[in-house]
């Protein structure tokens, strides 16, 4: 088979994979082309396994790859010579199995055709006769699947079906493909015959409808192949920017997936960090090696131990009605990061405050969140909450602890007890206040934000997933380095 066509298809496939969230770098594409040229296109199974070895980087990737490979390489019939001849072979094979039936059918068809209005008309009308002789019409009337599939594939390539992005573009591509496949003479003939020859017109319309339905199918498959990925990405992007309180229940599943993906990315970027200590067991080889420079006299001792930082996060979430939705996503994010932040403790409050860490460790995240809402919902009282928190956990806060408080800072005109907040501030490494309200609203009405800001290392607005991701990213970078 023609190598350039092969690699074109392969690149298409890689595009297709990328739309399914499998990261493929240009170097990987080159490898894939090498692999394909080494293994050849004859053994489908082998090719799939070879390509998987260079393109799928993890188990998740592999699952996505297998599905994608099945989808991508099963749709296309024709397009290149081998596959076309295969299709013809298949048609032949079918013919062999039931030659008799096929012949019989053909005979009937022949008889029918001799009586069909279009054929009768063709005897007198040169234009119609011309039309009937065109390969496309002949194939349609004879049901030559392989030829039709080939013609439609070529039309798809001409109309650049792979650039389709949205489902609403179907009409546009339908027109483009009909033109590309050469339907225009059919359309013109139909317009001419519509009033003069109703019978022939009906038959012609049937043929046209046949063609249209084939093309419609091809477009729908093409959409599934190429555009679905793009649409998904579009939805994800939209979801990242929507206010978290506006995320509707049916989008929750997508949201969770999105959060998990973000968390995976962040976790791999901020992997475990270690740093060298200045005490512990002496590393003799290393010390002597450095001593070489000073004539064997060990001036600079080297140590074996490497210190591993153990960052701790304490998340305090307001779960009263106005802020509950945000708390949910913050907690989801933090617990998706268990790998890099294993020592997260979480607290929930509206007026009373309590530790909810256990629920998150034991229950699936959704039921844990429900449980939290059930137990701690109500009207907000920051003063009471800080008091409870300080009793519960103030002694556990040390210079490695980051405290995140999520709340709108609206205290129903009660005393927010900022002195207690100051205590937390003085003990912890970093105190971060996340407020779902826009910065402009801080300090209006009963908001205690102006006072709160003074006692925080960082106070920031956080109301969509993008902002949340940015904050968690900063948090990780900060907790992992000194």
């Amino acid at each position: 088979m023609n190598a350039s066509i092969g690699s074109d298809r392969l690149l298409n496939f890689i595009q297709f994979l990328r739309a399914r969230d499998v990261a493929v770098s240009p170097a990987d594409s080159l490898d894939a082309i090498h692999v394909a040229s080494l293994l050849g296109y004859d053994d489908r199974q082998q090719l799939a396994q070879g390509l998987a070895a260079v393109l799928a980087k993890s188990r998740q990737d592999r699952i996505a790859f297998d599905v994608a490979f099945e989808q991508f390489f099963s749709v296309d019939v024709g397009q290149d010579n081998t596959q076309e001849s295969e299709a013809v072979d298949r048609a032949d094979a079918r013919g062999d199995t039931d030659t008799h039936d096929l012949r019989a059918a053909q005979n009937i068809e022949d008889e029918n055709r001799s009586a069909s209005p279009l054929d009768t008309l063709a005897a007198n009308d040169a234009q119609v006769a011309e039309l009937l002789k065109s390969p496309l019409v002949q194939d349609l009337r004879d049901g030559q699947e392989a030829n039709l599939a080939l013609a439609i594939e070529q039309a798809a390539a001409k109309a650049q079906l792979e650039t389709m992005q949205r489902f609403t573009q179907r009409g546009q591509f339908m027109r483009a493909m009909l033109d590309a496949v050469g339907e225009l003479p059919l359309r013109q003939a139909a317009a001419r015959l519509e009033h003069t020859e109703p019978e022939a017109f009906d038959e012609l319309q049937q043929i046209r409808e046949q063609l249209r339905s084939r093309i419609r199918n091809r477009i729908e498959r093409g959409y599934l192949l190429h555009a679905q990925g793009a649409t998904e990405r579009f939805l994800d992007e939209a979801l990242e920017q929507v206010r978290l309180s506006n995320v509707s229940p049916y989008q929750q599943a997508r949201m969770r997936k999105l959060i998990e993906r973000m968390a995976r990315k962040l976790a791999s970027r901020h992997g475990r960090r270690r740093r060298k200590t200045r005490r512990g067991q002496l590393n003799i080889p290393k010390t002597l090696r450095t001593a070489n420079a000073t004539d064997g006299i060990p001036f600079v001792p080297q140590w074996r131990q490497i210190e591993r930082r153990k960052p701790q996060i304490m998340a305090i979430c307001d779960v009263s009605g106005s802020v509950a939705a945000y708390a949910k996503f913050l907690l989801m994010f933090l617990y998706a990061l268990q790998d890099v932040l294993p020592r997260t403790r979480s607290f929930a409050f509206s007026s009373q405050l309590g530790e909810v860490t256990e629920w998150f460790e034991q229950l699936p995240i959704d039921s844990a969140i429900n449980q939290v809402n059930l137990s701690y919902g109500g009207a907000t009282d920051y003063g009471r909450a800080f008091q409870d928190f300080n009793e519960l956990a103030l002694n556990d806060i040390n210079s490695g602890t980051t405290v995140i408080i999520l709340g709108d800072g609206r205290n129903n005109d009660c005393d927010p007890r900022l002195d207690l907040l100051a205590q937390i501030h003085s003990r912890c490494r970093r105190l971060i206040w996340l407020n779902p309200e826009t910065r402009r609203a801080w300090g209006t009405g009963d908001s205690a934000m102006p006072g709160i800001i003074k006692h925080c290392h960082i106070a920031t607005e956080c109301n969509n997933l993008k902002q949340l991701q940015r904050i968690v990213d900063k948090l990780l970078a900060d907790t992992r380095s000194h």
Partner: protein
Amino acid sequence: MVCHHYPQLDSVEAVKERFNTAGYICTQQIATVVYLASALNKPVLIEGPPGVGKTELAKTCAAVVAKPLVRLQCYEGLDEAKALYEWKYGKQLLYTQILKERLGLLLEGADTLQASLARLHASGDAFYAREFLEPRPLLKALEQPDGAVLLIDEIDKSDAEFESLLLEVLSDFQLSIPELGTVSAQSKPLVFLTSNDTRELSDALKRRCLHLHIDFPSIDLERQILAQRVPDLQQTLTDKLVRFVHSIRGLDLKKAPAVSETLDWARSLLLLHATDLDENTVRQTLNVLLKYEEDIQTADSQMNALLRTLESA
């Protein structure tokens, strides 16, 4: 640089056949990847649960291509001094001592400082010479004149920093030694890395490797492996044994028995002259197959059901 070719691995079928003769029954998947590894000169990253033959694959490969196997076992805290190379500091110290003694001889007749320095420079610097270099596995693998099989075992146990040390070796088959310059492979080794997936490896490392995920084998494949490795066991028993292990893997276990456990079990049964898989034999030997007390209890409690499926099938 000579691009070494491993003629034993020049097609997927050849790989399959040669591995088979060497006693390793490989799936199409494994054969394809091994072939690609030798054809593209890329390292293979093998992932999968413990005991499915990841390490064995590399060993067999070394046997098939008849090249030395260089093995690097990874662990937490593994550093370049143990993986790449180390200076023989003791000898280096001795060398400086000798140099001091010989200094008079060397500088004899040089009356100005300039002249002595020139003499000193001319004599060459042997302090960081190749002779003082102690090669560790990675350097050793690169130095093999006719190629080698390099096995980097359990890469996930090492630290993330160590991965970056590997990158140069894996992509260019060379090693930069600051004092000496770059050492290139005399002939590119076949590299296998194994991982038990205890942590996510870095993208940079993954990008350089071919990926092979080995899972528990199918009933059929495992039967073949058993027949190959423990040929003395009766065929009916082998058959029962494999089906039993497969149904045990369906239980909710802390650690499901892998191929290596199946092999151990088959060998134990052979030693005990067992002819059939009855309840008694199974109970007595279950600890070969399962490594946790809880798992043994779980299997014990469902023993009847497990044995019944054996009869009905």
